[in-house]
Each structure stands twice: as structure tokens, then as C-alpha cells.
């Protein structure tokens, strides 16, 4: 048995158990994950988004497919505590399935932004978690591992983690709570995410305009 499993078996029930560590991680990720709801004449959709760091305005990163381009649609983001704000799409990158949202007005108590990690350092077998709203279930945690080390610097992050519609736009994170990917699709059972550094580069480019 691995040393970590032995340690877990011997660990006291409170504070250091695997379960409480996962619960703590889920809570931290819930604070930086929002619900992205589009309401329109022909389409109601719910996806996830990540409160993204920025030196200026309050922004949220999500998938382009979560916020389809439709005239008259209303976009609302809502944090885990129930704070809501109207938002606008300020930029899209259809190729990378990314969209950047800006809040019209920042509600009181809006959470601080997520910590962004580096997908290029991921190892196959490393534990990762995903947070999102699969099938509308709010703030659900999925547990898995990195399926394979990244093929290249900007290649998709592939994770052996169970995702569902509603996870789109939400975070894939390491155990430090660092965001390493934006979940965007399921391919033959594998979770596929846009690497966080690619999304961050996109955000910096947009905000520098």
C-alpha cells in the first residue's frame, strides 16, 4: 500500500482526513465559480464560469458555447452566496471556446478571483477536481486524475474525470485549488479543458485593448 494511503488510514478523523481536505477544496472552488445563465426568447441555458483575476474591472471566464451569440439575450452571473449581477460578453475566442464576461456592477460581497495555475506542469495520474453545475445541480464536485501529460504547451488538458453538460466553463483544479483548465467538452468519456494559461493570455490580450 502506498505511504499516502497508509497515512490516510492512520490519520485522525478530523482536520487531516482525505474527506475533509476534499470538502475544503470544494468550498474554495465554489467561492470562485459562478453560475452563468442566459435568458432569451428561444433559449435558456446554464453553464459555469470562473471569477478571473484582473487589475481593473470584475471579469468572469467561461466557454463561448455557454453564452451563444443571440440578440436580446440577457446574461446573469450568480456566485455561490447568491449574489447576482448582469454581465456582458466583452470578447470571444470561438476556436478555443472561450468567452470573457464583464460585470455591469459588482455586488457587495463578490468573491475575490481564482488562483490561476499552470497546466504545462501537470503529470499523468495527478489528482484534479472539477466544479460546475452538471445537469443544473449547483456547485457539484467531480474527482479524477490527469489522463496524460500535455502534448504541447497549449494543448488541451485531458482528465479522467466525469463531466456533464453544466460543467462547461467551470474550473478544473489541482489540490492547491489552482485553476489549470476551463472544462469545455467530453470526448469519449474524457474531460477536455482549455489550459488556464491560454485563457489567461486571452484575458490579458482583451484587457490590454
Amino acid at each position, binding site marked *: 500500500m502506498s505511504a*499516502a494511503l497508509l497515512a*490516510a488510514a492512520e*490519520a485522525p478523523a478530523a482536520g487531516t482526513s482525505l474527506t475533509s481536505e476534499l470538502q475544503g477544496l470544494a468550498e474554495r472552488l465554489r467561492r470562485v465559480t459562478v453560475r452563468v445563465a442566459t435568458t432569451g426568447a428561444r433559449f435558456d441555458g446554464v453553464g459555469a464560469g470562473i471569477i478571473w483575476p484582473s487589475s481593473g474591472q470584475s471579469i468572469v471566464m467561461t466557454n463561448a458555447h455557454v453564452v451563444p451569440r443571440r440578440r436580446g439575450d440577457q446574461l446573469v452571473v450568480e456566485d455561490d452566496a447568491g449574489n447576482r449581477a448582469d454581465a456582458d460578453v466583452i470578447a470571444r475566442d470561438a476556436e478555443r471556446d472561450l468567452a470573457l464576461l464583464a460585470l455591469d456592477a459588482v455586488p457587495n460581497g463578490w468573491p475575490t478571483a481564482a488562483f490561476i495555475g499552470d497546466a504545462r506542469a501537470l*503529470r*499523468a495520474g495527478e489528482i484534479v477536481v472539477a466544479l460546475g453545475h452538471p445537469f443544473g445541480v449547483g456547485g457539484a464536485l467531480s474527482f479524477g*486524475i*490527469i489522463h496524460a501529460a500535455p*502534448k504541447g504547451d497549449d494543448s488541451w488538458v485531458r482528465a*479522467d474525470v466525469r463531466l456533464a453538460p453544466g460543467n462547461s466553463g467551470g474550473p478544473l483544479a489541482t*489540490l492547491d485549488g489552482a485553476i489549470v483548465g476551463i472544462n469545455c467538452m467530453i470526448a469519449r468519456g474524457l474531460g477536455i479543458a482549455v489550459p488556464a494559461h491560454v485563457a489567461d493570455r486571452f484575458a490579458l490580450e482583451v484587457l490590454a485593448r
Partner: protein
Amino acid sequence: MTPTSRSETASTLRALSDDLSAAVERAARSVVAIHARPRIAASGIYWRDGVIVAASHTIRKEQEIAVTLPNGTRTTANLVGRDGGTDLAVLRLDTPPAASASLPEIAPADALRVGTLVLAVGRPSDDGVSTSLGVISAVSDRWRTWSGGEIDRFVRLDLSIYDGFSGGALVDADGRILGVNCSALARGTALTIPNATVDRVVDALLTRGHVARAYLGVAMQPARLTNALAERLKLDDPRGVLVVMVESDSPADRAGLLVGDLIVAAAGTSVAEPQDVAELLGGEQVGAALELKVIRGGERRTLTVTVGERAPAGEARRRGRAS
């Protein structure tokens, strides 16, 4: 707005995560990619010096099979033999891989326990290994696959066997190999073939080129005697298997078994289903004498059959074409 700082590392989980990725890296040194079918490659394990084990259903060619070694270099191998019953195939590398592949660390048989955290490690392309996480969901006794293979333990997995993972390794959190993964033995269910079975099949394929299967040459169905007859013959159990066909010049034919005989015991064990007879016929029984107690014409008889060997599927086909 400033990003939240990295909080203290989740210690137990982090240690587990490090163990898992280290286990993948360790196993990766023995897992190769095999390019013996169109499109997606499949996995194989460097099992012995110069010898690779793979899943038979992923091997569509027999010679000059391209193999990607753990260090990314390509080499070639030839098929030594295959066993459809266990879906295992053995390949021999044309040149020894030297330091570019290492033999796996084999876990003891008692490591196969329900609930054990396991990783499937495959190499479905030249881009490196990939992996999935899960647990062993069921372990039970020796079983026989629908295609007749004998597998020492039935090991069912709760994890994803992705495309190209068949022939890859199931490893524990220490990176020790528990078996060879296969999705083709039970309708896509993720299973692992335990090390003991793999060793037995590899031995057979390296020495004989095929796995011996015992053969009697009879078709059987369950049947029972009347209670009165069973009582008269002093049989505890009125059940047996009825011989409904005897292949000519087969071991059963040579031993004098006839259609209509009711087999009530084989090798001293009472039998009630054709499966009971089949269970007594492991590959190691080839050439051995099998004592059958039969009821014929209301009387007990004892016949001795010399167990024969079933021709390997490939040879049977070739012979069939020739005749």
C-alpha cells in the same frame, strides 16, 4: 481585485496525488504502444526479456509489428502466438530494447482485493502514456471465458478502459502490476487478467506457440434418472449429463462412449451439468486418463478416456481449408 493566495497544501491528498503520478511514471517504463491494427494503437507490457504481452484482439498482423518503446523510440516485433480464450498475445522484439524498457514490478496475488485503488496505464499513441483511476470492484474465483480460456481470478474494475488501453497494465498506488487490462472478454466490461494467468499463457505460447485445451469429443446435456432407477443403482444424486453426440475417432469414441450414455461422475466427482465435466478438463489434463462413471442400459459402467488436445483455432482453420 487580487487573487486569493495559495493556501497550505492539502497534505494527505497531495501525498496520494504524488504517489499516483509516481506510480504512473514507474509503470510507464514497462508499457509500450503496439501498432498492429488500423487507426488507434493499443498497449502492451514488456513482460520478460525481449517479450511483450498484448491483447490478442488488438493484433491484426503477425510480422513486422511496429512497437513504440517507453522512451519514444520505435522498433519491430513478431507475433509468437496468441490465445483467443484469454485474449492474450505474445510478441518478441527483433532487437533487445536494452535500457529503453524495463521489466515491471509484479504485485503478489493477494494484492487483488476489492476496494484497492488502481490505475490503468496504457500507451494508445506515440504521445506518451495515459491513465485512468478507479478501484477493483469485484474479485472472485477461477472462471472460464465464453471462448474457453481459463482465468485464475475474475477481476472486475470500476474504471474507464479508454480506446487503446487493452493490453495495458493495471497497477496499484505503488506502481506494481496487478494484471493486463482487457475490454474484450466480457462485452466491454473492464477486466484485468491476473499475473498468474498471464505467466501461464506466456509460458505456453513461448514453448508451444499455443495454449493446450483438453478435448473429449462429446456433446452433452443435463438429464436425470428416475428415482426408482437411481435407488436401484444406489446413486445419491439422480442427475447426470447425457451424451447426445460422439465425434468419430475422438478420445470419447476411442474409449467406447456411446450416444445415450448418462455420465454421473467424472474423476470421482459427480456431475450434473456439462459445465461440471468441462471444469475437470484444464489444459494440463491433456494426455491424462479420465475415469467416467456412466449408466448404460440401466447398468453402471466405468470407462477410461485418454484426454485429447483440441487443435488451436488457427490450425483447425488451416486444416479445414486444406481438406
